[in-house]
């Protein structure tokens, strides 16, 4: 494993500070955040960290990169269009940090999640 470490700061959609994580250079950002959540470092998120397929397909972990550089794996064009990509939108499971990052969760699927949650009363 590449031991180079970067800070990953997460804001929620209201830009309220939620917490930070340490990520490794060759580690998917979402995996770093899952580890931080396990250690109780991600507080005050509107809901649990959105974790789905972890492989760029389902779109659940869509986010906007506010600051920092990263490299990317393929991610589904259904959830990150070319225009989204130019704006800095990514799937957190399909990027790797090249510097400290500041990210904001911007899930595209919130509406569907709410429909499902309501119909199931969970």
């Amino acid at each position, binding site marked *: 494993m590449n031991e180079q470490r970067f800070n990953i700061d997460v804001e929620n959609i209201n830009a309220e500070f939620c917490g930070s994580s340490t990520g490794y250079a060759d580690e998917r950002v979402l995996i770093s955040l899952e580890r931080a959540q396990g250690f109780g470092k991600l507080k005050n998120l509107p809901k*649990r960290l959105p*974790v*789905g*397929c*972890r*492989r*760029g*397909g*389902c779109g*659940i972990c869509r986010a906007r990169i506010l600051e920092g550089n990263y490299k990317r*794996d*393929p*991610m*589904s*064009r*259904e*959830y990150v269009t070319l225009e989204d990509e130019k704006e800095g939108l990514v799937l957190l499971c399909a990027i790797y940090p090249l510097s400290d990052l500041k990210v904001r969760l911007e899930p595209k*699927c919130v*509406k*569907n*999640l709410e*429909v*499902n*949650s309501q*119909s*199931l*009363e*969970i």
Partner: protein
Amino acid sequence: MAMTGVLRPGFIQMRVMDMEASKEHYINRIGLHQVMEGDDGRVYLKAADEFDHHSIVLRKADNAGCDYFAFKVYDEATLDAYKKRIEDYGIEVDDVRAGEQPGIGRRISFVVPSGHRIELYATCEHSDPKPGINNSHIWSVEPHGMRARRFDHALFYGPNIDKVQEFFETVLDFRTPEQVDLPDGGLLGIWMTCGMKAHDIAFVNHPEPGKFHHVSFELENWNDVGRAADIITNYDISIDIGPTRHGITYGQTIYFFDPSGNRCEVFAGGYTYYPDLPTRKWDMDNVGKAIFYYERQLNEAFLSVVT
């Protein structure tokens, strides 16, 4: 022999974003074999315990998901009869020429009310590896990876599943061994079979049409589900949930994701369904146990994460 209409799931065509990583996943990890690669880049895979030409088709795309799910029917006359019944029901049927996929005869193709493309075909060549016929061994090539024995079923997410159920039951002669009811009288999910397995295809109610939840492969036993879990961790495959068990179908199972985020299941067991048996029903207060019998609650990803 009572089965003469739709016989079984035949093959499924999946979209993947990285073909080499996907081949590694489905061949080396799940344990399938590559039959061939087509001129258009599609890759055809099968389990060694299947006779038919292929059961999994991988197509490179810029998003993940499922293109279509094809069932094998008894013969060409059966195929013609289904074409007429589907058209009479009011669903448009497309003809797909023989050889559009190698080893597969002509197909008929149509979209069900949940937005999923379903296909039927009657003719299919065999390919290697396949089971022996005369005095045969248990396997013709030594099982590897998770030792998948066959492509077994798929679960789709989409709207109008009451209409999907009606179509599959009245037009394609499927039955519904198991379902989950919503409090308002609607359906959360249906598990349907064309034969004697507890399910060959399933649908869960979801606002977006045409979504894909998982493709499933059958393993020999519960020990192999545990071995699959070892492989998933050893090779850093993204886990969803398991090993666990379903109340619905009784299947012993583990869920994980392919390198493009398509959910895969390997499972063992499941009860035998006969056409005179009642539909087993679950209500929403017990849906946790229905889906994950040991955890007794749903995980959020099972209901919301689809490709």
